[in-house]
């Protein structure tokens, strides 16, 4: 991957082939970007005027719809609260599963794995009934809980993998040095699993940000809509179909993902490093 260690084989043929295959994708992304700032005459490929009208959704809200900022805020709340829930539960449950000699440990481990592989869609009706019963249908809280619960098996498993890589003696040494179990965890163990924590955090956030199915089913109403649902409702509306507006909102929607990805791409790879040792 890096240039340093590729001296014993030429990397350009690989780069070339990968590049060729990626061209269509890149062209699509390029047009997505160009189209949001220009107008193009029908039938032509070359844009003929520069315009910001496709981005007007940022500063004006059409009557009868919600402001994009409200929707963005919903998405942000949805993704970050969900991430928080996943992180805090995985952090503690992973530790318990990795370290503590608790009853039914094997049962829990197997359960977590099975749940991880469980097809979500089969749960929809049951979840719907539960949410209705609790009065959480059409609320952000409800859908946050559902999405977090569905992602927890994965999170717990990954965190357990990271905890497993911390030598047992380090904790024992800490205890011998006079620290309480909690101090040992916070000062000695946590710093060592931080890469895993960051990776899981970014991963969960991205997962929440891009989630469509759960919010669409359990929180479809306008004032709790998230961006994915909002976007879907745009194309569903046959009356005034605006392709470029759709593209602009789409671009607006993926920007944070791209930024997060660029910032954290190295950290994300950690999930596979630490999580593989189960």
């Amino acid at each position, binding site marked *: 991957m890096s240039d340093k260690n590729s001296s014993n084989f030429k990397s350009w043929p690989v780069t070339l082939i990968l590049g060729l295959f990626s061209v269509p994708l890149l062209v699509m992304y390029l047009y997505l970007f160009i189209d949001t700032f220009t107008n193009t005459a029908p039938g032509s490929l070359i844009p003929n005027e520069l315009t910001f009208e496709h981005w007007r959704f940022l500063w004006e809200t059409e009557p009868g719809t919600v402001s994009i900022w409200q929707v963005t805020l919903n998405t942000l709340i949805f993704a970050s609260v969900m991430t928080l829930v996943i992180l805090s539960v995985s952090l503690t449950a992973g530790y318990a599963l990795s370290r503590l000699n608790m009853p039914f440990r094997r049962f829990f481990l197997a359960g977590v794995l099975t749940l991880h592989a469980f097809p979500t869609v089969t749960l929809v009706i049951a979840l719907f009934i539960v949410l209705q019963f609790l009065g959480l249908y059409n609320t952000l809280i409800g859908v946050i809980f559902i999405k977090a619960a569905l992602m927890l098996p994965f999170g717990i498993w990954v965190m357990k993998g990271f905890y497993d890589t911390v030598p047992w003696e*380090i904790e024992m*040494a800490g205890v011998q040095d006079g620290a309480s179990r909690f101090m040992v965890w916070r000062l000695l163990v946590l710093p060592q699993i931080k890469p895993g924590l960051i990776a899981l955090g970014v991963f969960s956030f991205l997962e929440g940000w891009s989630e469509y199915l759960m919010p669409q089913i359990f929180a479809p109403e306008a004032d709790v809509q998230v961006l994915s649902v909002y976007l879907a409702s745009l194309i569903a509306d046959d009356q005034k179909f605006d392709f470029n507006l759709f593209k602009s909102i789409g671009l607006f929607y993926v920007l944070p993902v791209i930024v997060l990805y660029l910032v954290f791409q190295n950290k994300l790879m950690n999930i596979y490093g630490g999580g593989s040792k189960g």
Partner: protein
Amino acid sequence: MRILLDNFTKKFDDVMVINNMNLEVRDGEMMALLGPSGCGKSTTLFSICEIYQCNGGRILFGDRDVSNVTSQHRNVGVVFQNYALYPHMSIFDNIAFPLMVKKMPAEQIKKEVHKIAELVHIGDLLERKPSQLSGGQQQRVALSRALVRKPDVLLLDEPLANLDAKLRLEMRSEIRRIQQETGITAVLVTHDQVEAMSMCDRIALMDHGKILQVTTPNDMYHNPQTDFVAGFLGNPPIAFLDGVITNGQIQLKDSAIQLPLPSRVPVQPDGKIVRLGVRPEYFGNQAGIELQGQVSFVETQGRENLYDIRLGNGAVLRSIQPVRADAGLGDSVSWPLDTEQILIFDDQGQRVA
């Protein structure tokens, strides 16, 4: 501070690992727990510092019963086999950690850390991270961290196992020096008899969760209580011969050879089955009864050679002596056996004399 294990018992679920062990480590003494793999050395050590909780009996530090005192309050320094340094902290922070936990003022921490670092000779490494140190240096850091808060007791679990031969030699004397300079009571776990003999005041030899003998290295070497102890100590190891008491002498099994009993041994009844332990240094060197045999193995050790001599009845004796030209592989030799130095055990392996 002295450590007393009083009928100490440890089980893992249903597996009895240590049953009713009694052991006293005297104040200021360095005691080795020596024994083969799996005999329960680490289990005993970790019970002293409450990493494992004991299932029966008492553990006393001085006169204080600490059986139900948590690790944090036992004031024990532990050095683990893999050092267990905190990888994300600098060496300074590693050593300072026990003091920081105690909420000692920063100024004083600095002073204490530097003091111990000087003692252990790592004063110039304090800025580094553990991964930037060699094995021997990491070992020193682990030792400083265990000692910095002035523990009552120092516990070392196979501290030299991860070092190469030369460093092991160096750290052996270093650990001993530091233990003596601090005057701390220490327990060293090892399966290496040389380590135990060279570093410790006394050795407790263990097998299958039992202590077989506790005494000084010298006494254990010359006065082993059982054949197991005799076989465990000594390199090259002791050789055993089977025999029967006949007419007040020892008749070797399947052979006409008769050996006199050492003069210190009281009269033994005829027909008694015995096992003789012969250390390699007492065969082929001093005067004694000449034994005929064939050289079946020669190992060069530099200044000395180790010879295996197969006797007429198939039994093998070992001999260690200065390199000699007249004994090559397959040669017939007749060497003297110093019968005064033979150790005699009964058929249960207990020492007769």
